[in-house]
């Protein structure tokens, strides 16, 4: 699953079936790769991580199942380019869309930076709790009959694909070229010809 556009009403996310909010925090800055989306409100729910911009930068939803790893990151004095203390997470892009792919094959790094560092533990715990609540449906060792149905419900919502702002996308494309890993997407050009 990619980062998608959630359904919003009155600046709050419309919750899915049986979805609950584990944590709601405002004044959280979000970064997708190198691009800042400025301040917004973070919602960690029992199914997703949602961020809604305070201004006009849009809203974003990440399925907890797509978050491969999340952690508490604190800047190292030795590092040249470091972010302030934040929750950093890596999202696996399971679709075939190119724009969100990072250099490391289908992984996108997203950061949530709180204004107050004390919020970090709270955020980390909420992310962890949400991850625990969303095991993968294909896990044979744990045969849960409900899990497949939940997965279907999620897809039935009318959620649209989101485009990154032009700057972020261009910066990212430049990086690909520099690293010599720019590969042509697998398109069906035959139809066009």
């Amino acid at each position, binding site marked *: 699953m990619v980062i998608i556009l959630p359904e919003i009403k009155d600046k709050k996310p419309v919750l899915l079936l049986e979805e609950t909010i584990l944590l709601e925090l405002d004044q959280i800055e979000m970064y997708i790769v190198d691009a800042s989306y400025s301040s917004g409100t973070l919602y960690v729910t029992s199914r997703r991580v949602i961020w809604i911009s305070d201004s006009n930068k849009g809203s974003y939803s990440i399925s907890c199942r797509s978050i491969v790893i999340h*952690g*508490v*990151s604190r800047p190292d004095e030795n*590092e040249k380019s470091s972010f302030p203390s934040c929750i*950093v997470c890596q999202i696996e892009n399971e679709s075939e869309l190119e724009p969100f792919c990072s250099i490391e094959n289908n992984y996108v790094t997203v950061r949530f930076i709180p204004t107050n560092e004390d919020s970090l533990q709270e955020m980390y715990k909420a992310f962890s709790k949400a991850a625990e609540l969303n095991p993968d449906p294909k896990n044979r060792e744990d045969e849960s009959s409900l899990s497949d149905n939940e997965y279907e419900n999620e897809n039935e919502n009318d959620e649209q694909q989101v485009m990154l702002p032009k700057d972020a996308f261009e910066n990212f494309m430049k990086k690909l070229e520099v690293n010599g890993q720019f590969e042509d997407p697998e398109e069906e050009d035959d139809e066009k010809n």
Partner: protein
Amino acid sequence: MIFYQLFKKLVGKVITVELKNDLIITGLLEKVDQYINLQFANIKIFEPENHPQFASTESCFIRGKSIRYVFLPENTIDNELIQESTKEYHEKRKQN
């Protein structure tokens, strides 16, 4: 469930995991669940220059599905016990 039992024994120990995205992390295992989601403290990344986004991460939660390998300290596991448990598990599955 066999591996869940195994990992529970590793809580409090320092282990290394390699993820499917090639990230290699060493840290103190704090928590494990039945899906083999792992929580670590005091982590160190192998070759942080290749993964700058995680270079200054101190604790993390890893989704079980994303793990490729787990490197265990020597003498951590009882091979015979694992073999027996695995046999039993497969026999039960066949019966069901």
